């Protein structure tokens, strides 16, 4: 089973020179666009989602500039419509095109097969199809953007989405296609983890990143079809007037919200679980300590994935659903908060008595703990019914989800990218600038979103193109923060890109990590490993010694064998 090879006629041109790697094994546009190599697919995803992130980021800055003055920096009547399109496309691009595929499809694709010591994922062709679907989905989003735009909010709430003149159909087709892309990725990872682990890698010897991706994949394949069906129904509603969401035909708009959030709440965990997986790796590697409470972290990923299906109603506390339903959803919501809280305690405890290396990825990991803790704690205000009634659909919510999605997922993603960058491209980046821009991102981020908690609790509703004067001061602070954040993000990416040209050559294991991907050369050869790797405990650092000659860590053959089952 685990010997599926990715070789096809397209790849047959790869050369067997031992010094060649997956980047140099073949060249030309076709060798990339139709590759079956998970590493190349991961890299293509990386390029794609960064393009989406850039687009979403530019839209975000335009939004924030517009909100500098109460009546909108770009004028009044004309701009109400444009503002509504801006926030919709910003949200939709960030969610569907960027953050959902970010960690699983880009980093997961690259890292996961290496972590199991395999040559590829279980279904390489499906993997390629998933990327091509992503491209098609993105094209439909761009069509919506350049034709009449989209102004429904990324949530597509009916009946507004049935009536609006903007291009809802193109956007829903796009999201529908992206859903398949996401399902393909999830399916692939589940089968890969189930069937391709090497002998000796039991479930509880798996790196936590694999647990996280596995849990995410479960959500991807269970929840995404519901979104697909909902979007199909919405199209039916617009084109054929079937009348299940349209109140003028006896339909129920609140039903749409149930359907929508039944997918989209779990989708929040599609965004955050893989990020948590990255943090588990980073905290352990850069503290040189086995992760504290491994078993709990592993199980809690699965628990979060499953419980995440039961809490969708907390987006609807003031929608007119029954008070009983609201009470139940509130209770369940709090039950999901506990595993997340304990993970934070575990990560922090991992540093205890460690040897903490403040390399750039660790700076991002620490930044993550700070920001994600704020994101998580502010969720308590929204899970509690009485306070949510006041805060719902205000900037408090906007701040909360940016702390979770950007402060959590994006920060972890960038941290993970810095961590695996030497493996992916075989070069070391500049540590000084890496850390500097991490700090700029951190301060810019807080300046952008902390004032939003305040204005939200003071009553500033979200999705407002214009606002009453009393909120202006917070908006001005937030816009200045966003500009700083934008500079920080561009800088952080630039540091990585520049390293491609002038970076020092990376050793196989620059950080002294114990997971399998660090046992192959950097960048990995076409078939990942020269020899089948030997499975050790993923968080045992005892045998790894720093070798100043190569600037990385090597396995000390004389080191004592780790005691079996360290956790």
């Amino acid at each position, binding site marked *: 089973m685990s010997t599926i090879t990715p070789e096809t006629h397209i790849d047959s041109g790869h050369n067997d020179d031992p010094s060649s790697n997956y980047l140099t094994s073949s060249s030309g546009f076709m060798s990339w666009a139709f590759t079956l190599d998970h590493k190349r697919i991961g890299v293509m995803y990386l390029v794609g989602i960064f393009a989406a992130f850039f687009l979403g980021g530019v839209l975000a800055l335009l939004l924030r500039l517009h909100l500098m003055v109460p009546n909108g920096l770009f004028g009044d009547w004309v701009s109400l419509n444009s503002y509504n399109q801006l926030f919709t496309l910003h949200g939709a691009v960030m969610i569907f095109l960027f953050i959902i595929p970010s960690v699983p499809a880009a980093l997961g694709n690259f890292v996961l097969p290496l972590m199991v010591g395999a040559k590829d994922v279980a279904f390489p062709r499906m993997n390629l199809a998933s990327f091509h679907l992503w491209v098609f989905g993105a094209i439909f989003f761009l069509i919506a953007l350049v034709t009449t735009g989209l102004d429904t909010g990324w949530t597509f709430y009916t009946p*507004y989405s049935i009536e609006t003149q903007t291009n809802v159909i193109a956007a829903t087709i796009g999201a529908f296609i992206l859903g398949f892309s996401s399902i393909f990725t999830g399916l692939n990872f589940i089968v890969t983890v189930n069937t391709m682990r090497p002998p000796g890698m039991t479930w509880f010897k798996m790196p936590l990143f694999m647990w996280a991706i596995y849990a995410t994949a479960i959500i991807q394949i269970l929840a995404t079809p519901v979104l697909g069906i909902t979007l199909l129904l919405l199209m039916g509603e617009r084109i054929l007037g079937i009348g299940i969401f349209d109140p003028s035909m*006896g339909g129920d708009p609140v039903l749409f919200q149930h359907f929508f959030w039944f997918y989209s709440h779990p989708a929040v965990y599609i965004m955050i679980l893989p990020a948590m997986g990255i943090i588990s790796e980073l905290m352990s590697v850069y503290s040189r300590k086995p992760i504290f*409470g491994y078993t709990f972290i592993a199980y809690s990923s699965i628990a979060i994935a499953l419980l995440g299906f039961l809490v969708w109603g907390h987006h609807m506390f003031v929608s007119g659903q029954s008070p009983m339903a609201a009470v139940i959803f509130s209770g369940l919501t709090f039950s999901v908060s506990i595993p997340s809280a304990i993970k934070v305690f575990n990560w922090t405890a991992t540093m205890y008595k460690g040897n903490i290396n403040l390399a750039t990825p660790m700076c991002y990991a620490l930044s993550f703990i700070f920001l994600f803790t704020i994101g998580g704690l502010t969720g308590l205000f929204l899970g509690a019914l*009485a306070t949510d*009634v006041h805060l719902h659909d205000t900037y408090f919510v906007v701040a909360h989800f940016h702390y979770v999605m950007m402060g959590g997922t994006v920060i972890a993603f960038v941290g993970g990218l810095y961590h695996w960058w030497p493996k992916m491209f075989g070069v070391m980046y500049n540590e000084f600038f890496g850390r500097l821009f991490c700090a700029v991102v951190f301060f810019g981020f807080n300046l952008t979103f902390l004032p939003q908690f*305040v204005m939200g609790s003071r*009553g500033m*509703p979200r999705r407002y193109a214009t606002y009453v004067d009393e909120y202006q001061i917070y908006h001005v602070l937030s816009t200045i923060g966003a500009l700083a954040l934008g500079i920080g993000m561009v800088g952080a990416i630039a540091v990585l890109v520049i390293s491609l040209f002038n970076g020092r050559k990376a050793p196989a294991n620059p950080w002294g990590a114990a997971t399998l991907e660090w046992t192959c050369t950097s960048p990995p050869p076409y078939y990942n490993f020269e020899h089948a790797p030997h499975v050790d405990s993923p*968080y045992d650092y005892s045998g790894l010694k720093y070798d100043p000659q190569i600037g990385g860590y090597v396995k000390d053959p004389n080191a004592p064998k780790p005691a079996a089952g360290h*956790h």
Partner: protein
Amino acid sequence: MLSILADTMFFPPERSTVAGSVDGLFDFIYYLSLFFFVLIIGAMIYFVLKYYQRPGHTETPSPSHNEALEITWSVIPSILVGVIFFFGFTGYLNVREAPENAYEIQVIASKWNWVFKYPNGAESSDLHIPVDRDVKFLLQSQDVLHSFYIPAFRIKMDCVPARYTSTWARATHTTGSGIDDSGHAPLRLFCAEYCGEQHSKMHRGVFVHETADFDQWVEKAANILENNPPEIAGEILFKRKGCAQCHSVEGDNSAKYPGPPLNGQWGTERQVIPRGSSSPITVTMDENYVRQSIRQPNSEIVVGRKPGMTVFTPQLLKDEEITAIIAYLKSIK
């Protein structure tokens, strides 16, 4: 000291009876969160400073799990979130269920407008309510989703097309005095559910009046006579007072309407049977006939109809209002 900071920083003024308890819960969560935040971030910074990689420093073995510790830090937060959940839902049930005998105002949202309707028939586009009285808001939408949000009261509820929803509040402070808007600094009412182009323009003022002022205001707002030409006022009254339920103004003489049609009748003659008599007499539809038919409807019944019309006393319908209705009846052909 800290709590003063939190109050002024986070909240609009508390202007309803529930606002205090919402803010109380907010503060509770806030301080609890602050405590845990300082704990976690404090530990993180402490560990970084104490264990960062420097020449000669290495990691020391320590247990990679600790059951007692892990159970403690699972159980304590679980209890705390249980408490938050409990206060959250009791406070919520309170805003969902209006007290009995609340004064009821209908709220009709549409793209992009609010209409408030009061029990005496008054209508307004800003919200006016009495202080210290339970007010129930019955919410409707005419098109897409909207959401009725008054930050100072800490209430919010979606307006869903083809469905009624409701919420309520009891204001604790007036926003000024007098029935004139200029004597007030109104609170804000927002639409909080995205509803299209002018969503962000869909905000209005909330005026909280002294009881006596409110009674006057709502009386005046309902007083259609002063604000309209007589035929128009008469038409509004004709519908609002229930005349239209029994009298067609489209000439429909069928049994669907208990009373005879009233359009095109001015100045015409008709046969009526005076009370206690058996033979009809002829009368003309003029001011006196109309007035009498309203004040003593059963004194003269049109041939072929049964007595049964409500007696409109001056409390139900004032003389000036009858005059307006007469003007209306004259105008309909």
